[in-house]
């Protein structure tokens, strides 16, 4: 009660809040909007760096033979590309969106733990600085794949592996703190009347994601610590000669790794649900089933890890268990796709850039999901495993999946954040070039994979040449078209171009961020909790 009294007096207090000026604003800030912006910019930077690494990979693979880089550097590129994109682009982007949106969506003035929020962001530039610095070390950067299987990543690793381990530790600390913050915020800071089953889906999916993060990031920290011990302190966790087991590494890694996959897609489900509903001008179909489906996916994600390891020689019973549990994931995932399609059905649709990306998400993520179902069939996986078919599969769920959802989210909420509309024509160009580029890049990978091309090779047999050339062209189209996005964001925010956004921005969006706040949102919001019916 007394709190309410204080906040009502706030306007009279001559405490006109605005951000500090200059670099210190960003260093010291505890404002969820500032921190969200920094996360998003870090993600954008990582996306461009990781994209350049993809360019190196695709340029080398444009035709058979070794043209540009030696195999060792090629392996460094595939490794760093994976690490940077997973830990530097996709995850921070979602944390950035969570920072911006969760308080606005639940009617909270800020995140519950603002200083921890600041710290969890500022750890990241150092973590990635350390990781990138390995490229300039003697012996080069990590070259053992983003999955860093022992003993290639222990006894046979370049010296820079130690820096890689510390950098993973720092990222893990950052992620866990971010997740704790999300959970505490959602549990304690909801506006009166905002019950759990009234929470917007983005909040729900992030809540579940945050629990996944807390559960598995320590497992990742554990596995890299075991590596550290093996490398420097003479233990033999992953060395059979000393009584250890290289396969133990894979079990522990994928116990982290599979939930990690869902960490990168669950928030996307939330985003897409909002966008499809808004542009179909129809409430989301099956809100409750969406919540349950997301929860089931999260729970299932803990018992499917060995489907990444069908060929390591696990016993038949284990193989069957992991095949069945993996196939089960198709059920809640299917429910989500059906709900989205039904939301569109008999709607009144328009196709602004966020909606285009959202529709592409549903189509292309479903293709990635279906190839995932194929991969779940263990006997067939013996032929798919570690080929380009797998590369095609996980890029379909991560690029037109996770990444498209992030792009859609930025287009969708940017007018609310900065008060100006992005340029729709540029947005459409960005979408169509990305859509064509992404399919040109990743669809033919299914074919070369089925035809027998292993992943992570710097050079390939001649029968794969034509498709690889197409893939490389597609990759450059896709990569370069992201510059349109960067320009569009720049001109809308710093360039101050584009028409002023209305408070609602879109025709009939639902949610507190649209209905209870002006555009652009002020630096401080919801100092008095809004009314939720």
């Amino acid at each position, binding site marked *: 009660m007394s709190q309410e009294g204080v906040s009502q007096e706030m306007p009279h207090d001559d405490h006109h809040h605005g951000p500090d000026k200059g670099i210190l604003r960003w260093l010291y800030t505890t404002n969820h909007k500032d921190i969200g912006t920094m996360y998003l910019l870090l993600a954008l930077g990582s996306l461009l760096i990781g994209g350049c690494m993809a360019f190196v990979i695709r340029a080398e693979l444009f035709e058979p033979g070794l043209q540009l880089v030696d195999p060792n550097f090629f392996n460094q590129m595939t490794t760093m590309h994976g690490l940077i994109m997973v830990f530097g682009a996709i995850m921070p982007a979602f944390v950035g969106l969570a920072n911006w949106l969760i308080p606005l969506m639940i009617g909270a003035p800020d995140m519950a733990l603002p200083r921890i929020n600041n710290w969890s962001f500022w750890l990241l530039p150092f973590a990635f600085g350390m990781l990138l610095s390995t490229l300039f070390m003697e012996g080069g950067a990590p070259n053992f794949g983003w999955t860093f299987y022992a003993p290639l990543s222990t006894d046979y690793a370049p010296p820079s592996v130690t820096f890689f381990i510390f950098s993973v530790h720092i990222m893990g600390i950052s992620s866990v703190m971010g997740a704790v913050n999300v959970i505490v915020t959602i549990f304690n800071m909801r506006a009166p009347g905002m019950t759990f089953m009234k929470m917007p889906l983005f909040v729900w999916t992030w809540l579940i994601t945050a629990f996944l993060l807390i559960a598995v990031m320590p497992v990742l920290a554990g596995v890299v610590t075991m590596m550290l011990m093996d490398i420097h302190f003479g233990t033999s966790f992953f060395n059979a000669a000393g009584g250890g087991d290289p396969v133990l590494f894979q079990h522990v890694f994928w116990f982290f790794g599979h939930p990690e996959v869902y960490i990168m897609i669950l928030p996307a489900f939330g985003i897409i649900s909002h966008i499809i509903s808004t542009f179909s001008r129809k409430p989301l179909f099956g809100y409750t089933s969406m919540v349950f489906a997301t929860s089931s996916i999260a729970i299932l994600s803990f018992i499917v890890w060995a489907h990444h390891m069908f060929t390591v020689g696990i016993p038949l019973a284990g193989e069957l268990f992991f095949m069945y549990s993996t196939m089960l994931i198709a059920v809640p995932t299917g429910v989500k796709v059906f709900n989205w399609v039904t939301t569109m059905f008999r709607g009144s649709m328009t196709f602004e850039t966020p909606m285009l990306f959202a529709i592409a998400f549903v189509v292309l993520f479903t293709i990635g999901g279906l190839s995932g179902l194929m991969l779940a069939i263990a006997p067939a996986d013996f032929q798919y495993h570690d080929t380009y078919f797998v590369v095609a599969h996980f890029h379909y769920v991560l690029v037109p999946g996770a990444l498209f959802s992030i792009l859609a989210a930025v287009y969708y909420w940017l007018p609310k954040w900065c008060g100006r509309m992005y340029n729709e024509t540029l947005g459409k160009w960005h979408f169509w070039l990305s859509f064509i580029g992404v399919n040109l890049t990743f669809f033919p990978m299914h*074919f070369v994979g089925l035809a027998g091309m*292993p992943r992570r090779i710097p050079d390939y047999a001649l029968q794969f040449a034509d498709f690889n050339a197409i893939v490389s062209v597609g990759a450059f189209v896709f990569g370069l078209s992201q510059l349109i996005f960067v320009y569009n964001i720049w001109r809308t925010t710093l360039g101050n171009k584009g028409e002023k956004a209305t408070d609602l921005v879109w025709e009939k969006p639902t949610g507190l961020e649209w209905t209870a706040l002006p555009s652009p949102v002020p630096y401080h919001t919801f100092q008095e909790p809004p009314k939720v019916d």
Partner: protein
Amino acid sequence: MTRVGISALSALLLLTSSHSAFAEWGLNMTEGVTRISHEVHDLHMIIFYICVAIAVAVFGVMLYSIIYHRKSRGAEAANFHESTTVEIIWTVTPLIILIAMAIPATNTLIDMYDNKDAEIDVQITGYQWKWRYTYLNEDVDFFSVLSTPQDQIDNIAEKNENYLLEVDKPLVLPINTKVRFLLTSKDVIHSWWVPELAVKKDTIPGFINESWAIIDEPGLYRGQCTELCGAGHGYMPIVVKAVSKEEYKIWVTQQAIEQAAAKEVKDMSFDELMAQGEKVYSTNCAACHKQDGSGMTPMFPALKGSAIALGDIDKHIEMVLDGKQGTAMSAFAEQLSVSDIAAVVTYERNAWGNDKGDSASPKYVKELKDNKK
């Protein structure tokens, strides 16, 4: 039917319709040459068609809505947003499809795990970056190394048809015989994959995995390592040569004789040692230490001007024989014959401006090796 389906799909996707062109490009999983590989191919096609059917249904409804339920056509939004019945239907239906799919998959998997009653046992050992095949019931044991010349990889010479998929000595197996593979590794994890046999198993240091195949038709079947194993991962192909049982018997006898002969220690001149040494070096050492001996520091030290190559010859030979613990330098005592080791040591001491002028004789290497035992 299968071919037509696949190429129709790709024709759609790639806006072209030439069927024969795609056949050359390789679009689909091979049917292979074993019963298991046929079963796996069939499973793959069934699940593929199920996925296509689901995709057509889902995307069909979506496309319909996109065309007819758009605002620009004056569509009014309905307001329905819940139906427990519908949710139950689309939870249960996929579940039934999945169960139907799981049954044949389970049967095939049980088949694949039936390692009993093998007539031939072959141990497959992964090395960075070559394969070793040991026929457990015969005196046959050899390494199989990529035979594509470096010039083709470096785009100096024209690439031949089997670029990167050819080896010096293929794994020879009889047809219509159950062959059991026992897979392990000397260093990091590799994975032995031959698509036509539908066999892909990781080779794990310190552990032995099992798999098997009965090959139906004679022929050459090519595969590759499919687990990232370091810089040479793309350069350790597999070639299986399937022959009739009679041919196989002849081959085994010949191999046993040849391999016994190769173990004899001959005297070799300096020039012979250098010539053989260069060959041994390119196939076994150049991937890390580089063709010109410059290495890739600090992981793979340079041999040009190195303290070992220019120091005590005994230490040099021992390094090659025993390798160096805790590094990527493996022990070559079992991998190379004594004359190969003598040749490569001699070569390393006298190539790229190294000018020791001395040489190791095969006899001397054998002496050092025997003393260790």
